[in-house]
């Protein structure tokens, strides 16, 4: 709409990241370059995923409006690479668990924000046409920050040797949820024909639930040691 509107959207999308970085104490560890490295890993992983998808999943050519359940599921499975990427980032960073998780998640989420939201916001929110979708996109970036922190935490827990037996199942379930969240959302939208605000709300609730569960597990794990 105007530059002002772009400023609004930009603030909404970016300031939570900034606040998180500053207040989580990452700045005290001088973790900026580690975050940038995490971001670079993100780029590398996305590139690999894209190549893989383009090679093995040609465009679905079914009729319009038909939902290719199996195909979409297989595509979502490729997102497992994200887990590997996060693990890679964390294994290369020495330090405490929380620190590792935060660095990996911050770098990862920020790279995603810059790569996939910056340009649409600049191009779209600055145009004459007003659309709520840019505000929604900014909210969505807040949600994805939570999502990646939860995901990193779950990955960290999963890769620990001293993970108690009773934790194994819930962590695996959370891991699967994290990976297939996007797929589940797609499915919800397709089945219930949700509006864009409802989708955002459902996404927030789902992500919040995953985040709280992993937080619970994490805190229990850390304090039990």
């Amino acid at each position, binding site marked *: *709409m*105007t530059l*002002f*509107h772009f*400023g*609004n959207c930009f*603030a*909404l999308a970016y*300031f*939570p990241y*900034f*606040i*998180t970085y*500053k*207040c*989580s*104490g*990452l*700045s005290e560890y001088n973790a*900026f*370059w580690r975050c940038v490295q995490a971001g670079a890993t993100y780029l590398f992983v996305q590139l690999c995923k894209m190549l893989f998808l383009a090679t093995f999943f040609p465009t679905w050519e079914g009729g319009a409006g038909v939902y290719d359940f199996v195909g979409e599921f297989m595509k979502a499975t490729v997102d497992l690479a994200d887990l590997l990427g996060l693990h890679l980032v964390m294994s290369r960073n020495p330090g405490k668990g*929380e*620190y590792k*998780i*935060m660095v990996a998640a911050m770098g990862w989420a920020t790279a995603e924000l810059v790569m996939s939201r910056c*340009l649409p916001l*600049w*191009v*779209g929110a*600055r*145009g*004459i*046409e*007003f*659309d709520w979708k840019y*505000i929604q996109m900014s909210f969505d970036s*807040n949600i994805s*920050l*939570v999502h990646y*922190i939860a995901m990193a*935490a779950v990955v960290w827990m999963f890769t620990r040797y001293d993970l108690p037996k009773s934790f194994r199942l819930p962590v695996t379930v959370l891991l699967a949820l994290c990976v297939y969240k996007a797929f589940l959302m797609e499915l919800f939208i397709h089945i219930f024909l949700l509006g864009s605000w409802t989708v955002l709300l459902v996404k*927030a609730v789902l*992500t*919040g639930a995953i*985040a*709280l569960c992993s*937080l*619970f597990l*994490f*805190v*229990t794990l*850390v*304090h*039990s040691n």
Partner: protein
Amino acid sequence: MFEEASEVFDNMFKSSFPLTFIVFIPAVLILVSPLPAEAAHEFTVYRMQQYDLQGQPYGTRNAILNTEARTVEAEVLSRRCVIMRLVDFSYEEYQKALRQSAGAVVIILPKNMSAVPQDIVQQFMELEPEMLATETIVPIYFAMEDDELLSIYTQTLTSSSSQGSLSAAEGRHSSATVLLHTATANGFQMVTSGAQSKAISDWAITSLEGRLAGVGGEDLPTIVLVAHYDSFGVAPWLSYGADSNGSGVSMLLELARLFSKLYTYKRTHAGYNLLFFVSGGGKFNYQGTKRWLEDNLDHTDSSLLQDNVAFVLCLDTVGNGDTLHLHVSKPPKEGTPQYSLLKELESVVASQYPEVKFSMVHKKINLADDMLAWEHERFGIRRLPAFTLSHLPSHRLARRSSIMDVRPHVDVKKLSRNTKVMAEALARVVYNLTEKGTPGDLQIFTEQMQVQEEQLSAVVDWLTAQPRAAQLLDKDSSVVSTLEYHLGHYLKDVKRHYVKADKRDPEFVFYDQLKQTMNAYRVKPAIFDLLLAVCIAAYLGMMYLAIQASQNSRSSLHDLTPTNAPTHTLISSGAEKTDSYEFLIY
């Protein structure tokens, strides 16, 4: 917070030089990138006429439009784009909008023009010349109605009328309600994509001439048949000019066909030259005819027009009605060919088509007028005996220059009947049948020589398939070349005549940008942005406070037992999820 931000950037730039490139060059590239045009709705608009005639400006003088849409119901119209529908268009509201210095007017025409009630059509026809009579500073556009445009209109109408009623009842409403209402209102920004209109230089108006030579000695009398082919309406791109003057051209072509047939046989080859002229720029004071006469009378030594012209017959608006009028600027004297044509027409109508009311209308040429009334006056000024055949009783009737003059306005049956009348009368003059004692009810054009209704209707269909305003038909246009081909089919020596306005003192000037693409962007008022900014600031502030609070409780977290910790985090993360993990850094 901002100091910290700058610290981060400082670190970034000190540590590595290439990074500045990575960050700054894309930033610069993005900053200079043009704004994208992703419109809610995109539609074609047709601009009102803009031309100068004899130094006098007419029509709208502007083409650029970038303002918010309103309807006439709104309180303030200044610098707004006023949308109106033809169905409830009124000249008073149009004038009111212009008086309030509206930024532009967009008039939405119904998609199916023939479904519009006749009185509305009639009323708009009358208004068209008034709208054009004086120059208008702001752009006036016409658009064809579609569902999207209708919904834009309805939304604008709702917000405009509620705005009007709100400001009227401001005393009763609290200012907060009004503010909220303005902040949440949906608006539409209307933007045209084209540039400012400018005069087209060196525009050539094309006219076509062709002849059928008579037989029997030198210095034969010449009969000239003239019809102008261009159309006129309030918007050039919407002027289809079916009755005026598609019907005249089709009658002329049919007459050319019939007489070319007669002139191929020795027995029916008459002692008259027939000169056919399809003139351009007829709606702009008959510019094509004017130049043709100048070329023929002043600049050439030998021309059919210079010696022995029997009469000039102009055909204008002949495709409807049960009346026929022969408009003359001087009543013909007895014994002249002009007089005999008048008599022949009378007798043909009386004996063969008694349902037609035929009359002669006498109107003197008024040289003080800006515009000539009929095409024959151009010839009258040059002292050539001339008259115009039309079913209209007066030249002032609005239907001669209206965008409402579309294909259904021509009744092919009546056009064919009028053509027949004309052909019969002309043949009787050419072969001098009355003096030879042929009865009045003898029909010449029967059987193989019949007036072909399909031919007439095909020509009218083709002519009304595209707008034929003089500004749109250059010398390469298909209308002109097809007409030329058609004439060449029947006539000899088909020639083009071009009129270009004089460079220093142009008699007519046309302007471009008559058809444009308009975008309607959905916009929110500036106050909405402010409100949104406040909301976002509040949201971010709450988040910041929540994180701060959680940091303060960090130390106390150490003392908590493992079982207690999650419940604690649960409480604070309920307020803001993003910061749930800030506890973990201890």
